[in-house]
């Protein structure tokens, strides 16, 4: 037998053996399970580091505000203050029930922070609430990832492991974005989601604020010769206010004399879209679970007022981190669009309501 024949028979034997191992045993699945689980383990370490880092940041912030036992305050918050969604198989009243539950939760968090930070200012307390919420979310993300990882290992479910491994890159990216966002709230800089309130800030001019709902103000100003009610959350602390309720109150006061309701909000962009792109359309641009949005829609429908929406596009990460220059430029474009809508669609003696939706941290 010559050398080439020897090689050919070795390769043939290896191919047959390999084919048998791949097709008639669980070895490939076991290997995949092992590969994915080692990848997930590394990512869990990364997530745990992010979670610990977020906790350190909260403790540092609370210590700066002279809180006696910041660790205890943090531990008392994490895992608590969850909200059970209202029954949805009976939809009657669901919005009222949901609003009731959301507000109860908001009140409980506010009370908890007030009790533990009695000497802090309102802005500091509002920012502390958000920091505690972010830390709590990061803990929850880590727990959910660990849950699916352990479930996959327990039942040798390599498909679950593969799904988890493939999703994890995005999950870690989101967790990092949340962790970075904590710096923005600690410093009190405007965030991407603040694009709506920033548009409202520029539109109000020198008008004075009037509180209309909790943590929500309106300004009466004049734009292009038209009377405009500008609504936004009351800053510069971290809050989104109750814009739906504010619109409802104003519309119920003014009735059908309002010619237009314009909502301005940050919107999640598609991957192919550029940050800071501005688009306009019809409807209520607001990303709440339901109660605030429906309040705007109902108020507009009751009096037959056209509802315009202007959105400034950004990614999820950009929405919760310090506002970038591209978003700021988008804000400038949005202001021009709002002014154009007012000029073209509101009669000279008409009234418009402009609502800047979003978190007003860093914007008065």
């Amino acid at each position: 037998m010559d050398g080439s024949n020897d090689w050919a028979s070795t390769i043939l034997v290896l191919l047959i053996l390999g084919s048998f191992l791949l097709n008639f045993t669980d070895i490939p699945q076991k290997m995949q399970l092992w590969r994915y689980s080692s990848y997930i383990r590394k990512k869990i370490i990364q997530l745990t580091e992010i979670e610990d880092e977020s906790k350190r940041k909260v403790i540092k912030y609370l210590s700066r505000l002279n809180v006696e036992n910041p660790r205890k305050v943090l531990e008392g918050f994490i895992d608590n203050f969850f909200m059970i969604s209202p029954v949805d198989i009976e939809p009657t009243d669901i919005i009222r029930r949901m609003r009731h539950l959301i507000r109860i939760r908001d009140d409980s968090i506010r009370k908890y922070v007030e009790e533990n930070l009695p000497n802090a200012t309102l802005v500091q307390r509002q920012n502390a609430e958000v920091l505690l919420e972010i830390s709590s979310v990061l803990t929850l993300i880590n727990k959910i990832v660990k849950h699916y990882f352990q479930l996959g290992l327990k039942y040798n479910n390599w498909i679950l492991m593969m799904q988890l491994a493939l999703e994890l890159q995005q999950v870690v990216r989101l967790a990092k974005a949340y962790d970075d966002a904590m710096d923005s709230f600690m410093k009190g800089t405007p965030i991407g989601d603040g694009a709506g309130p920033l548009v409202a800030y520029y539109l109000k001019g020198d008008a004075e604020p009037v509180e209309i709902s909790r943590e929500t103000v309106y300004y009466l100003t004049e734009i292009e010769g038209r009377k405009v009610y500008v609504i936004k959350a009351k800053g510069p602390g971290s809050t989104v206010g109750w814009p739906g309720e504010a619109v409802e109150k104003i519309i119920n006061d003014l009735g059908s004399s309002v010619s237009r309701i314009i909502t301005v909000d940050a919107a999640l962009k598609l991957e192919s879209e550029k940050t800071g792109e501005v688009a306009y359309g019809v409807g209520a641009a607001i990303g709440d679970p339901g109660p605030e949005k429906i309040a705007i829609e109902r108020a507009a429908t009751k009096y037959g007022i056209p509802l315009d929406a202007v959105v400034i596009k950004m990614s999820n990460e950009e929405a919760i981190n310090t506002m970038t220059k591209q978003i700021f430029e988008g804000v400038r474009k949005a202001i021009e669009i709002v002014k154009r809508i007012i000029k073209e669609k509101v009669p000279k003696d008409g009234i418009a309501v402009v609502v800047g939706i979003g978190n007003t941290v860093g914007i008065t």
Partner: protein
Amino acid sequence: MLDPITVVILAVLAFIIMYMTVSAMKSRQEPLKRKVIVTQLKCGNCDYSERREFREGDYVGKGIGECPKCGGKLLVDAIYLEEVEGVPELGSAISISKQGQPPRKR
């Protein structure tokens, strides 16, 4: 004449070297950038404006003092994150630029 195993090993080595070289070249081409939070100040009375690095306590709408040009009220007009080219430095500050000039690039 080279035997087939040697040829395969050489081909794999050549591929790895090429891949590493291309990756290294790609990372070298990316310009170094650092992020700076900029606070833009504007006078409510005249056209005076200036930019400086963000300081804790700044917020949009905050009164900062008097306008050096007309004595009017100087307000924080905008706060945003900007990418500037250059090597990140510890404790680095962007230069204060007036009348809406972009910050000095490093």
